[in-house]
């Protein structure tokens, strides 16, 4: 009997017309790592919740068919019963941590099961070791990095000794090294010969990282399984078609094959890509590749307008003694798209809050100027017409009943004339592709449209500079693409954009310049190409460049440049060498 069996399983949330899952038939055995892939709203979380009983016991709705885990019909158990067999790690580690020390937090679950103290201690030791948290036992969870906190959440789940460990987009909120840490923990658990089944859900932003770790792929689309098979399915173009996207290396090799390069096998991981690339080069006797003549020209950074943001020696100390910004100095030029990157807690959001006047410097000689004006002395209602900031979570701001009312809120607050408001709202709705949704109820919008709406609702204030916190978090590849295209459109319309993000693919493709923050300081600031060409500097801030850049860096001995930013660039470079006549 399989560890998990779903028989003709369908579920519709109460109040929704469409089924979240429709007629799912699935069997999964223990001892493997399964990637559950699909766009936002495809049914991934619903499926994971069904395994532990959150559905139907917390989230009620219409439940058909059977979900059997470890031989037990889930709907005949309680969540507490199922917690002995299934654990789930949520996207946000913060809500899953309850205790003063790492040890206490890991012990929380086993203690709730009423196990003897010796057994609890044994499980705590096991889970801490598996989650690579040895040495952290007495640390306060609040002092851990995002990746370490998520590892702690995994340790808490492992201490329940589950037969099934499920992780719902566990790396979405983490910096690249944090993502790697968490996925290495997952791999460690799976590869140590236990029969634990691990299921990781992923919407596309971290498809490269997930593809490195899983054995089997199950792809959901609109509540139905459209793909189920080995890891090589990550190379299937259907992932592009449904808006999830493929790993960058898969997209690269698929592109080469389409161009007539005899690619034997489409790789899905970086190691496979390096091996396949070396094979291709060796077959043609290419020891070192040649750079095309236009490659150097492409490296010339664009030029921009006047300096419109100037920050000098900015310090911020949160009471009692957390030095969040330590003498930060930076600038932004008109027309740029600047990416601010760094690990969780590095000071990115604190800096952004200073730039819009939500925080004041804690040192007197700090300079925070926007368009030549000292914003520390300005009224916020004046500042927001020059520079504005969109928070990461759209649920923090959306309140109006309809999309139109939400976008019209800011101009109404600023007492703008009705005719002008109407025109501005119309424009914002068009930029973020919300046309046709004007009368939609905001709360019933899908996540991607909510994110678009949050940004669109700032636009009528016509801020010259827009700061956007994690514009693509929570979005699948399609949503991220639409978002960034809209941001490009804003730049073309004269806005200057600063984004804070953990998604290096987005930075590489769209940002002209990158500012890298680490522990309250700027450790690198320059054109994206230059910054991503220095992996050792990025590593100081727990950052790794995108997979395609890493591929070039891994092949440096074959003449590959270390600053390739996109799949298209790499493809052109390779076609120039592999099919010189056609490049």
């Amino acid at each position, binding site marked *: 009997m399989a560890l998990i069996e779903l028989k003709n399983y369908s579920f519709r949330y109460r109040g929704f017309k469409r089924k979240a899952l429709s007629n799912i038939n699935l069997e999964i055995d223990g001892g493997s790592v399964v990637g559950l892939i699909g766009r936002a709203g495809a049914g991934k979380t619903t499926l994971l919740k069904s395994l532990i009983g959150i559905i139907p016991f917390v989230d009620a709705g219409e439940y058909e068919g059977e979900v059997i885990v470890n031989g037990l019909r889930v709907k005949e158990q309680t969540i*507490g019963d199922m917690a002995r067999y299934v654990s789930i790690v949520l996207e946000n580690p913060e809500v899953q941590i*309850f205790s003063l020390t790492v040890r*206490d937090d890991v012990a929380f679950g086993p203690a*709730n099961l009423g196990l003897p*103290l010796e057994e609890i201690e044994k499980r705590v030791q096991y889970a801490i070791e598996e989650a690579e948290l040895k040495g952290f036992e007495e640390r306060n969870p609040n002092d851990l990095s995002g990746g370490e906190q998520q590892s702690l959440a995994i340790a808490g789940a492992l201490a329940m000794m589950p037969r099934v460990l499920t992780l719902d987009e566990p790396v979405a909120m983490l910096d690249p090294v944090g993502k790697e840490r968490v996925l290495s923990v997952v791999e460690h658990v799976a590869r140590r010969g236990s029969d634990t089944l691990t299921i990781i859900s992923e919407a596309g932003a971290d498809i490269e990282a997930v593809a490195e770790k899983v054995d089997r792929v199950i792809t959901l689309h609109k509540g139905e399984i459209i793909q189920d098979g080995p890891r090589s399915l990550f190379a299937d173009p259907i992932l592009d078609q449904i808006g999830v996207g493929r790993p960058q290396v898969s997209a690269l090799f698929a592109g080469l094959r389409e161009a007539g390069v005899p690619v034997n096998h489409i790789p899905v991981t970086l190691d496979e890509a390096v091996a396949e690339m070396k094979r291709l080069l060796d077959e043609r006797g290419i020891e070192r590749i040649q750079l095309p003549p236009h490659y150097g020209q492409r490296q010339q950074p664009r030029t921009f307008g006047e300096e419109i943001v100037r920050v000098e020696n900015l310090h911020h100390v949160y009471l009692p003694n957390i030095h969040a910004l330590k003498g930060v100095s930076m600038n932004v030029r008109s027309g740029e798209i600047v990416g601010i990157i760094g690990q969780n807690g590095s000071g990115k959001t604190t800096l952004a809050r200073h730039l819009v006047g939500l925080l004041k410097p804690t040192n007197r000689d700090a300079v925070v100027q926007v368009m030549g004006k000292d914003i520390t002395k300005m009224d916020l209602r004046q500042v927001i017409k020059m520079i504005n900031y969109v928070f990461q979570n759209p649920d923090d*701001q959306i309140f109006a009943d309809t999309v139109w009312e939400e976008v019209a809120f800011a101009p109404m607050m600023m007492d703008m004339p009705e005719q002008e408001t109407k025109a501005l709202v119309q424009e914002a709705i068009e930029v973020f592709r919300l046309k046709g949704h004007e009368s939609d109820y905001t709360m019933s919008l899908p996540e991607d449209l909510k994110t678009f709406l949050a940004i669109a609702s700032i636009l009528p204030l016509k801020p010259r500079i827009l700061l956007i916190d994690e514009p693509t978090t929570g979005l699948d590849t399609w949503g991220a693409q639409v978002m960034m295209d809209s941001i490009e459109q804003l730049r073309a319309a004269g806005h200057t954009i600063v984004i804070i993000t953990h998604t290096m693919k987005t930075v590489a493709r769209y940002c002209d310049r990158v500012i890298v923050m680490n522990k309250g300081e700027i450790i690198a600031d320059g054109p994206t190409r230059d910054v991503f060409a220095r992996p050792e500097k990025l590593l100081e801030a727990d950052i790794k460049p995108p997979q395609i850049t890493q591929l070039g860096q891994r092949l440096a001995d074959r003449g590959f440049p270390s600053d390739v930013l996109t799949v298209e660039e790499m493809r052109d470079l390779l076609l120039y060498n592999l099919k010189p006549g056609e490049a």
Partner: protein
Amino acid sequence: MAYWLEYESRDTPIHKGVQTLTKLVVFGCIGLLAGLWWDPRYQLLLVIPAILLIRASKLPLGWFKVVALAIVTSLYPVTLTAIGQTNPNLFKVLDKTWATTPIAVVTLPIAGRVGLTYGSIMWMLAAELRTLVVASYAFVFIYTTSMAELTDTLLTLKVPRPVIFVVSIAYKLIPQLQRVVDHILSAQRLRGWTLRYSNPVKIVRRAMPLMKPLMRRAAMLTEQITIATEIRAFGTGKPTPTRPLKLNRIDYAIMGITIGLTLIGLYGLAFHNAGLL
């Protein structure tokens, strides 16, 4: 950085050196005396150790902004109650003549003699000091006690598990909600929102951009935290306390002194009206 009503792990004698049970006993005794005493001079006796505990636990003083607000907003109902206390028979300890000496007193047709006297001022002071005292001890307790410590202690004290569940969820939820409020407030201010009316109806209407996202996020957070606890079997069986109650000498000393002083206080109150006006 800890938000208001959020535990913060710090290396202070109150965080590390005192057991949760001891803190509960101190908090309970102080709460009892603060509730029973009506003489502000006695309340001041409770303020002194509170100040010492605040200093020792390094409690952020910003937490008291809310207390200041509570005191200011309670001034109106407290004053309304105080102005009715012009009857000399209400005062058991104070000299009745002095206590009813008018500061601003009028005689109204039905209500009779109302206004401020020295006695009613003393009563008002005690009422406001009580808020300060109880808040101070509650703050120190929350700031220095983690959820795990509190849960273990309540388990040892055989508190019913549903009660522990509710307390624990609240303990986790309140600081999370404050982060949410902070974000919502900032997000709406960045769209030009201000609370600029004095008309209460308009204020309520104007508060909708804060209230709606807050309600929604509160519901989401409650669900997330409930799920996060339930999937770790919280509230489903008979849990094992992982920190069996181990009281040190200092705990016994603090509890002994506190209980002793409380008994003396109660004796004084019951038999000598000590603490009454």
